[in-house]
C-alpha cells in the first residue's frame, strides 16, 4: 500500500518557470537583429506520487514515484520539458553577413514528470 506522500505546497511541484533573457542586458543587441530576447523557460519542482496521476506525467514517472514512496532510496521521478518549440535568430557576423538560423526544441512550453 503506497505511503501517502507528505502534503507539499503547490509552488514546489514540478511546473514550467518563465524566464525572459533580454539580449540588451548581455550587450548582444549590437549584433542580434531579431528577436530582442530569448524565452529561457525551465522546468523545476517535485514529482511526488500524489501528483503523477494528475499532471501530464508518463507511466514511467508514475511507477518511479510509487517505488520512491515505498523505498525512499529510489529517487523521485524528475521534472522535464514535455513540449518544446523552435526559435529563429537573425544576426550579423564578423564579415557583416546577415544570417538567419532556425533552431528546433529551444523554448520550453510545458513540463511534466
Amino acid at each position, binding site marked *: 500500500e503506497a505511503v501517502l506522500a507528505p502534503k507539499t505546497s503547490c509552488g514546489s511541484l514540478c511546473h514550467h518557470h518563465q524566464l525572459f533573457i533580454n539580449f540588451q542586458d*548581455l550587450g*548582444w543587441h*549590437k*549584433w542580434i*537583429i*531579431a*528577436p530582442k530576447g530569448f524565452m529561457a523557460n525551465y522546468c523545476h519542482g517535485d514529482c511526488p506520487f500524489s501528483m503523477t496521476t494528475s499532471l501530464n506525467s508518463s507511466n514511467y514517472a508514475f511507477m518511479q514515484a510509487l517505488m520512491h514512496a515505498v523505498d525512499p532510496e529510489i529517487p523521485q521521478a524528475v521534472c522535464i520539458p514535455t513540449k518544446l*518549440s*523552435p*526559435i*529563429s*535568430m*537573425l*544576426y*550579423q*557576423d*564578423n*564579415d*557583416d*553577413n*546577415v*544570417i*538567419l*538560423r*532556425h*533552431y*528546433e526544441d529551444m*523554448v520550453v*512550453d510545458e513540463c511534466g514528470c
Partner: protein
Amino acid sequence: QTFQFQEHVFLQFLGLDKVPSPQKFQPVPSVLKKIFRDQEAAATSGDSQDLCYIKDLGTRGNILRLLLDQGLFLYSEKLPQASSCLQKQLYFNLSAIQDKEQLTMAQLGLDLGPNTYYKQGPELELALSLVQEPHVWGQSIPKPGKMLVLQSVPWPQGVVHFNLLDVAKDWNSNPQKNLGLLLEILVKGTRDWGVNFQLQDTCARLRQSLHASLLVVSLNPEQCHPSSRRRR
C-alpha cells in the same frame, strides 16, 4: 569568467568564434524578414512546422546567409569595347560555412538600382564569368574563365538573380578555387543613343548603385534529419 565561458559556448552554438561587432546593421532583405516573421508566428501559435524547409525559397535548409560582395571595381585604360560600362570583380567569403553543412541554394543578387535613374532606359548586357587564375598585379583585369551568364537586361530594375549553386559547392569544397567572379556590364545600342556623355552618366550611376550579394542556404544534418519519407 563564467559569463565569458557561457558566452563562448553560446557563440559556438551559433557557429561563431567570437562576438561580432558590426559597425552598422546591414539592410535585411525582405525575403529574410518574411521567413523570420513566419517562423516566429508559427512557433508562437504552436503550429508544427518543418524547420528544415524554407517554403519561400522552395528549398531545404535551416541556415540562411546573405554574404556581401567583397570584390573591387576594375579600371582599365582601354575598355575592351566602346560600349563597356563597368567591370567588377565579385568575391564572396564562404569560410563561415561549416564542413558538416550541405549547400542547398546559392543565389547571386545584382541590384542595379531603381530604374528611375535612367531617363531613357538603355539596354544593358550582363556578362558574368568565373575568375580561374589569380589576379596578377599590373594586369588591369583578371583573365576571365568559364562564362556563366550572358544576359540582356532590357530595363535595369531592382535585383537580377542568378543561380550559382554548382559554383558555390565547388568553392565550398575547394576554397582555393574561390577567386571570385568577373562581372562586365555593356550598354547595348549606344550607336543610336546620342552623345557619349549619357553613356558616361549611366555608367557612373550604375557604378554607384550596383550592390551584389550571395544568398546561401545550407542544411545542418545534426539539426535537420533527412526529410522523413511521407508515410503511404
